[in-house]
Structures are given as C-alpha cells and as structure tokens.
C-alpha cells in the first residue's frame, strides 16, 4: 500500500492504495467518480481522459501513485459554480454526442486542445482528438462542437432540413 495525496475536482483526498492501481480505477472505485469511464484495455479509446495538472491524460495509462501531489480534473469537476464549461455547452448545442460514452473523454480532450490552440482549423481539431474514439457520431458534430466552443463559425454545408 502506498499513500497518495491529491486534489480531485477541487477536493483534497488522501488514500492508501495498491501501487498497481490505475488512476481511472482510483477515480471510479475509490472516489466514485463514475463520470470517467473505461472503454478499452490498450489505451486506444480515450474514454478515460482527465486532466492531470491541467493537461489531458488517459487515466487508464497513469498509475494512481503517479498522480500523488497533483491536481486532477474529471468531467464531473469541469462545470464551475453551476455553469457548464463552454465546451460542455458546445457539445450539447451542436449535438456532439449520442450515447455519451465517449463524451467525458472527448470533452476533456477538447478542452485541452483549445487551451493550446484557441482557434483550431478543422484539420487541427481532427488531429487533436484523434486519440479519442467515438462510434456514434461519425465525429462530424464533435468537430462542429469544438469549432463552436472556440467561437469560430461552424463548418459550412450543414443540415438544411
């Protein structure tokens, strides 16, 4: 057992954990942060993406002990004072989700992407979220959501029904 101290979604936590425990297991099983999900066992899907000291990481690819002393933000801590984060708002506005399983990871990754590149092109968005798989949306509306969140006009040739 190893002791870790960290801040998760603004809350200070300390725990004795098995050294092999993954950060995503720690979040889900110890803290009940079930908003963050697991979609694969090879670090390919990105469903588990959270922020570790402000940068997006795949939390299935990080040991909980590696987060010792760090600040972790999950999808559950993204909204501030009851206000949705603009990226959350944009996903809803642009229908960037269907089943919603990829969505926590997709949103966390998009927030990180926009931090680095506040006005990304469509291509930059597509490359920036390449590590996050979505089986439902075909990515079209996810790309639009990120464009929308960045304050850019969304891609032309949209639904005209």
């Amino acid at each position, binding site marked *: 057992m190893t002791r870790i101290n960290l801040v998760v979604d603004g809350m200070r936590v300390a725990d004795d954990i098995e050294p092999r425990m993954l950060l995503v297991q720690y979040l889900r099983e110890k803290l009940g942060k079930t908003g963050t999900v697991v979609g694969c066992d090879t670090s390919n*899907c990105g469903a588990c993406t959270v922020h570790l000291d402000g940068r997006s990481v795949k939390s299935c690819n990080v040991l909980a002990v590696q987060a010792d002393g760090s600040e972790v933000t999950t999808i559950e801590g993204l909204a501030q004072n009851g206000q949705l984060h603009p990226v959350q708002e944009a996903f809803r506005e642009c*229908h960037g989700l269907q089943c919603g399983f990829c969505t926590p990871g997709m949103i966390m990754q998009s927030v990180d992407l926009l931090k680095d590149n506040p006005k990304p092109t469509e291509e930059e968005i597509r490359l920036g979220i390449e590590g996050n798989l979505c089986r439902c949306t*075909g990515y079209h509306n996810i790309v639009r959501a990120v464009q929308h969140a960045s304050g850019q006009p969304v891609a032309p040739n949209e*639904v005209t029904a």
Partner: protein
Amino acid sequence: MTAVEESASPAPALEKEIGRDRRRKEDARLITGRTRWTDNITLPGMLHLAMVRSPFAHARITGIDATAAKQATGIVDVVTAADLDESLGVCINAWPITPEQVTPGHAPIASDRAAFAGEIVAVVVARTAAEARDAAELVEVDYDELPAALDLKEAAAATAENGGALAHPDLGTNKSAYWVFDSGQAGTGGDVEQAIAAARTDGIVLEREYRQQRLIPAFMEPRSTVVDPTGEQITMWSATQIPHILRFALAATTGVPESKIRVIAPDVGGGFGGKLQQTPEEMIVFALARRLGKPVKYTETRSESLMSAHHGRDQWQKLTLAAGRDGRVTGLKVELLADLGAYVAIVGGGVPVLGAFMFNAIYKFPAYHFACQTVLTNKTWTDAYRGAGRPEATFAIERLMDELAAEVGVDPLEIRQRNWITHEEFPFTTVAGLEYDSGNYEAATARAKEMFGYDELRAEQQRRRESGDKVQLGIGVSTFTEMCGLAPSRVLGSLDYGAGGWEHASIRMLATGKVEVVTGASAHGQGHETAFSQIVADRLGVPFEDVEVLHGDTQIAHKGLDTYGSRSLVVGGEAVVRAADKVIEKARPLAAHLLEASVEDLEFKDGRFGVRGTDAGVALQDLATATFAAHNLPDGMEPSIDAEATFDPVNFNYPHGTHLCAVEVDTETGKVTMRSYVACDDIGVVINPLIVAGQVHGGLVQGIAQALFEEAVHDEGGTLVTGSFVDYLLPTAADTISFQIDHTTSPATTNSLGAKGVGEAGTIASTPAVVNAVVDALRPYGVHDVAMPCTPERVWRAIQGGGAGGETPGAAAPHFDESTGMSGTVDRTTGADQ
C-alpha cells in the same frame, strides 16, 4: 381548482415541436458525468466475476484444475458447467429460418468442448474484479485441439465423409439452413433462369462475387451486467438494447417466472445491433447471483468484447444479373453463404433473410431469385450489426449497377434512372413481394447531384484521366432504399420469427399536469427522450419541458419490444401518438362536463378543449389535476385520463436516398482519401433534424469504415488477430471528413407521423458509395473491383492487375464450386474482365 376559462383569452399557441431542432434532454447528464452506466453500479456485498475463455477455436476440454485459483486472495468460488444445473439456462435462437435448420445447443458455459476462441469454460467469483481477473489466470484448463472449421466456403463444403473440419462434429454438417425466395414461385415475378438465358443470347449477363467481410459492432461501452437477487424480484441491470426480450429469454430458459424478473437497461453506451443479444455472460451472472444469494457484477474488457460479443456481416455473395443491351435489368439471381459462427445467435440466422427482400432495391426488374446457405464455423457467433442483411444486399446491387453502367457505357446515375421505380408508380409492389408506400428517387437524386456538383466533378475526373494524374478522382453512387421499422408481426410470423414486432406506449397524466410517457423502445444514444417529448408536446399541446420520457426498465415499461431495426420512432413513436389520442378522448367528456357543454361542441386545439364559437375552454393539463382530485367528474367516469396503446405496423417503411462520394486514389501508393460526401435522404417527416443528422453522420462513418478500414481477422488457428483497438481499426476523427446532408420528403403512409426510420440508413447507403468511388477512380486501369476493406495495399495490388486486390489471409480464392451447395458455377473470378 380546475381552471375553467370562461372568457380569458387562451394561452398563446405553443410553437410546433415536430420539425424543430431541439437540443437533447439526455445531454445534461451525459456531458457532466452524472451517468448511470451498468458498470457504475455498486451494491452491498457485491461479488465480481471473471471469465476463463478458450484460447482455441475448437478444442476438447480434458480437465480443469482450479486448485491454485481457489487459494488466491479474495476468491469466493470457481465454477464450471458441471457445477451449475439447468437453472443456468441456455442461449436461444429465436429465429429458426427453416423448420429443418440445424441448430447446435448453446450452453452459456462450455462443458466438454469449446467451439470458438473466446468461449467461456469456467467462471471465477471474487470480492473484487481485479482479484477475479488475477485468479482467472491461475485456472488451468487442459485442451485437446480439434480441427477447426474456419473458412466459410470450406466449412460449407465439409461433411463427415469428406473429412472436412466440422464446427460441431456431432452434427455431421456445418450447413445450418437453406432459405430460398423465388419470384416465379412466389408469383411476384418471372423465372430468373429464363431471364438469364435470354440475356446470354441477346443482352448482358454480369456474374460477380463479393465478399462481405466480418465486422465487429464495437459499441464504446463494454458490456456489463449486474444482478441483485435480494428481495422478491431478481433485478438485472445490463448494457443491452433489449431489456424486454432479455427478460422473456431469462424466464423461458431458467424457469424463473417472468413476473419475478426485472430487467433494467440504464444508460447504455451504443449498441448498433451488438447489444441485441441474450448473452452467455448475462445468463452466468443471473445464475451465480441466484446461487450465491448476493449481488454479482461482470464487466467485460475490450479484448473480451471484441472476441466474444457477436460479430456482423461475413458473407460471400454470388450474383448473376441479366439485362438488355440498353441496360434495363431483366433478372437477378443471388446465392449467399453466410457465416453464423459457432452458434446460431438470437436472430443470427435471420440476418441474411432480412436482406433477401432488398437486393432488388429501388429497381423494377421482373425476375428475382434469392438463396442463402447459413454455415456454422468455429468463430465468434454473428448476428445483427447496423443494417443487418440490408447493407449486404444494398452493397451487392449498387455495385452491380455501377458495373452494368460501365458495361453499357453510360453514367451510373443514368443506368439507375433507366431501372428505378418512378415517383408516379407508388405504391409499388416489388419483385420481392414488398409494397413500397412512398418515395421519390428522382427528387433525392436531383438534390444530391446539385449539392455534390456532380457535372463539375465528372469534368475534373476527365481532365485528370487525360493528364494521367497520379492521383485519380473517383465518383461513387449509391441510390439505396431499405425496409425498416421492424416489423409487422404477421410478416414476422410468416418468416418463422419467434416474436412480434409491435410496440407499446403509455401516457400518465400526473396530478400537477406534467406528463410521463412510457415507451417499450429502449434507447442507447438515439435521443428517444427528446424526440418522443416533441411528439407528445405537439399532440397534447403541452410544453416540451413538461414531458418526461421513461424507458429501459421492465417494471416501468411493462411491455415492449425494444430498439433495433430503425423501429423506435415509426413503431414506438406511433404507439405514443395513439396513446396520446386516447388521453384526449378520455378527457373529452370531462371537459364537456366541466364546461357544461356537449361533447360535440368541443374542439381540442393547442392543449385546450374549447367550446366552439365561445372563449370558454379548459386545458388538458388542468383536466389531469381534476381527475386527481376527482371531486367533480361525470357520472361513471373513472378518475383517470391515462392511456396506453400497442401499435403493430401493417408494413415496413422504406427510407431511401441518393449518396454521392468523391475519393482521391493515389495510384502509386494505393491510398484512398475521401474528398467529399453528399447524402440526400428521404426519411419522410423529420421530427428532430438535429438528431436525424447525427444518426446519418454516425451511420455514414460505420458504412465508410466497412469500405475502407474494418475487418475482423482470424489467424490460421482461429484466434482473432484484431482482438484489440490496436488492430481493429475504428475510424478516428482524422480518418473522416465533414459531410453534406439534406433531405427530400415523401411521407410514409403507414404511420400517422409520416416518419421513416433513419438509424441504419447511413450505414446501408455509404459502403457501396465509397467502393464504387474507388473502383470508378481505377476503371482506366482495368480495375473492376476492390475487395473490402479497400486498404492501400489492396488498392495498389488491384492497380497492378491483381484482380480485387487480394483477399485477407485465411479466406479462400473467390470462386464458388459445387461442393459449397450453391447451384451453378461461375468460371470467372471477381474483378476479371468481361
């Protein structure tokens, strides 16, 4: 305190909800992580399972030693088939497509023989999931490997006599069922052999063979099941598309009364047909929770999901098309081999039959013959995957139409126009015996061409061909239709399907005037909560926000047939409409009573009963309150305006559309790059354009993925090579493009909404559009076909004169022979010159 409005002006009419791009109600919880996935559930004393799975495709189990595993930390038990009695139940095949179908028994845990790599042979129960997984590694299973039936054609030809490998040696054959439709015999058309013979003398005969590679639905949420046996009822939460059908199957096969079982599908992370199953894992969790008296959970890993959740497609299609010299089709003969995998899944055998009615698509040719042999192999079982039978059929006919156009020397759209049903001809009875109620192929095609810039792109293609550009432009066409809205129960009965196709809805008018809508259709990403709210808001004239849609729990939605086959809106939505109409009719006498008017003088509009010619009126929501108080009701009226309805459709419905795709093919590397994609779909009346667009986009990418990226590949021993997301290539955002979509509208006539299903349309349409584009780019190089997925290597090989670019290792050379049980022979291989 019912507000009867004597003279006050009625509330302003609410904006129409149908057709409005409402943002989804579901999203608030999904974007904030307040979700209820099955794997989130933790119950007091809950135990966890891990499965021990066969690494071999076919092997006799000669011993299982769990001694070491039983001593591991946290272990409660290790269970094999021998430890469980018939209370474990069996996995059922609900659709034996012929009375003679050969159906191997399917126990959730293999006892003496494993029939595919991934089959469960033992189960470990532990206090945590990690402990269970660790201990599963310690279970020692001895196997004697058996010859495995892996290649579809070889499996079809194998018999006990010829020594071919049999998936289940005791059955003596791998052939499961042979299903035939013949227009001559059915009286829906002529004799196809005559049509072919005539075309051989004077006309065109195209013989082609296409491979529908095996795909994996790969929903993003791995399957997970929790069963709580405490209390009076046994409650199962499962990541399933079919809570109602699952409850029935559990009851029917375990002997537990249906009334003692509650199945809940909480938030479910995608399905695409892949969660339309009664799985061994669900049966095992159910049995062990009962046995141990404790809540039990099992969540699969992604690797387990890819190898053991059912796969889709996997067919060989042998096609003979007859046409006149002018390109008018005179007949089509289809002979399929369909790989069932090791067991006949819940509707697995029926998947090709769903395609049987669609090979004729939007065309009106006079003779049609379809025959399908389903075949058992030692691979993962197959079943519905988005489109289920219809993508395969659409691919075949749309590829053939392009080949015919090339043969006749006309534009692919021209050849379609020469053959399609014109809009004046609806309703139209097809050669497959279906009645298409509505459609306008001309309109959808005209709009798609305009959006695409068809003529300009053809001109550019010509320029590039002439200049010998190393990057060639290809234009692909798919003018698809499909049958969806599964399904008229009578039709299902005639096809020997084991259930009906109705859907149920109820509407509860709450005391506060709020409205609860309960539907038996169970969503997993489709947005039922939003779309059904819109329908009810319009119908009852209540605010969208006042409607709550409940689903996915057999205790709340006591009747239902769940979500698949693009049925929720057109069957489930219509049930909701009918329940809403009953609410209005139940409320009418009460309104008349309170307004002191006669029923005949009332009109219901915008949520309010008004007395014609006066300002007097009363709101429906206030009538709900009046029934709650029940102080002042007409004599004999029950104090309720709640209502329910069960709707059984009389026909399928037939979305259609024209999809156009432009790709660029690098002739030096074989790399295919999507350049643009236009989809003009006719799905009838659209309830929520935003949701529809999402369904189309997602469907398109799944279909494009079949064309370009995905294939479940097994090695020579039958192990799944594409057993993780490293190897099974789901498209990423970087692999796809933005789409241009629009709609034309011919309302369906078989539901009052005028709506048609949209869930599968994109997937059905897009695969042939993309492959047609790839082949179109390469026609000057003598290429007539590229096998799917059109990887750079395969495209490059095709350019070098390698036919369709080579098959996936392990697949036989593409030609049929007599031993497969198909009639007739084709002496030409795929993609060869005429």
